[in-house]
């Protein structure tokens, strides 16, 4: 019971810190009243919503912190990938020559957050939409399929995203 309440406190504290950061950024003032009000409001919101932000069973994970430098690298890689595949989709639209397929493949990632992030990234890259994510099994709609082999399709679609994600989240 004590471990549970301790973990609850940590979760509330973590949510509060994140919310307070948002408050500081969006108010942009450092007056005493604003700071106190922000702390109070974020604590209030955190006590109500900590369960949504950090689920109780996430305690098994090594850390709640992401590795920031890998996170930035991942975002930049995602951005570059987005622009590259945007131009590919542009050419497909102009030529009117598409070869859509639904491919299935698996992912090596373990935590829920990492899997969801992978599926989101796949949807964010133009040309692929994640249709379904069950455990480690992904179903993806591919606009211009180059292969039907499931493992090779996984390698082509995921690219370096999977390895980078496994480094971002500890």
């Amino acid at each position: 019971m004590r471990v549970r309440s301790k973990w609850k406190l940590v979760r509330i504290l973590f949510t509060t810190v994140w919310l307070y950061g948002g408050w500081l950024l969006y108010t942009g003032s450092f007056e005493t009243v604003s700071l106190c009000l922000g702390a109070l409001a974020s604590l209030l919101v955190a006590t109500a919503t900590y369960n949504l932000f950090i689920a109780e069973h996430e305690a098994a994970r090594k850390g709640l912190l992401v590795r920031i430098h890998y996170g930035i690298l991942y975002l930049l890689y995602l951005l570059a990938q987005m622009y590259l595949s945007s131009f590919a989709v542009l050419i497909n639209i102009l030529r009117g020559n598409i070869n859509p397929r639904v491919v299935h493949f698996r992912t090596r990632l373990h935590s829920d957050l990492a899997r969801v992030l992978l599926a989101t990234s796949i949807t964010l890259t133009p040309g692929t939409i994640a249709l379904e994510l069950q455990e480690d099994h992904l179903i993806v709609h591919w606009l211009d399929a180059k292969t039907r082999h499931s493992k090779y399709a996984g390698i082509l679609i995921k690219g370096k995203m999977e390895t980078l994600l496994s480094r971002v989240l500890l």
Partner: protein
Amino acid sequence: MIEGIVYLFLLLAAIFNLMGLVGILLFPDPYTRLQASSTCSTTAVISVFIAVMLEAGFSAITGKVLVITLFFFISSPVGAHIIARYAWNMGIVPWRKLRKSSLEDLPHD
């Protein structure tokens, strides 16, 4: 210099948005139309955000736009995924390009 890059990104945004709309009209089935609309428009909006961030320089506005961009990074693909997942669970069969060989296999009448 920075002005030029800002204009380049705005131009890219316009092109991507236009092509996304053309794609909606040209493509044959819900999935491919979703590909054209959601994903190309996402790139367009991100281009606008990048242009705004470059224009604002290093200031508080850039931080706010960055947070909005991160939120958009999460919300936009989730919306597209929900539509696609609903279509998939409804049992809508994705359109597939017929190959010439498979056309020849069809019985003639």
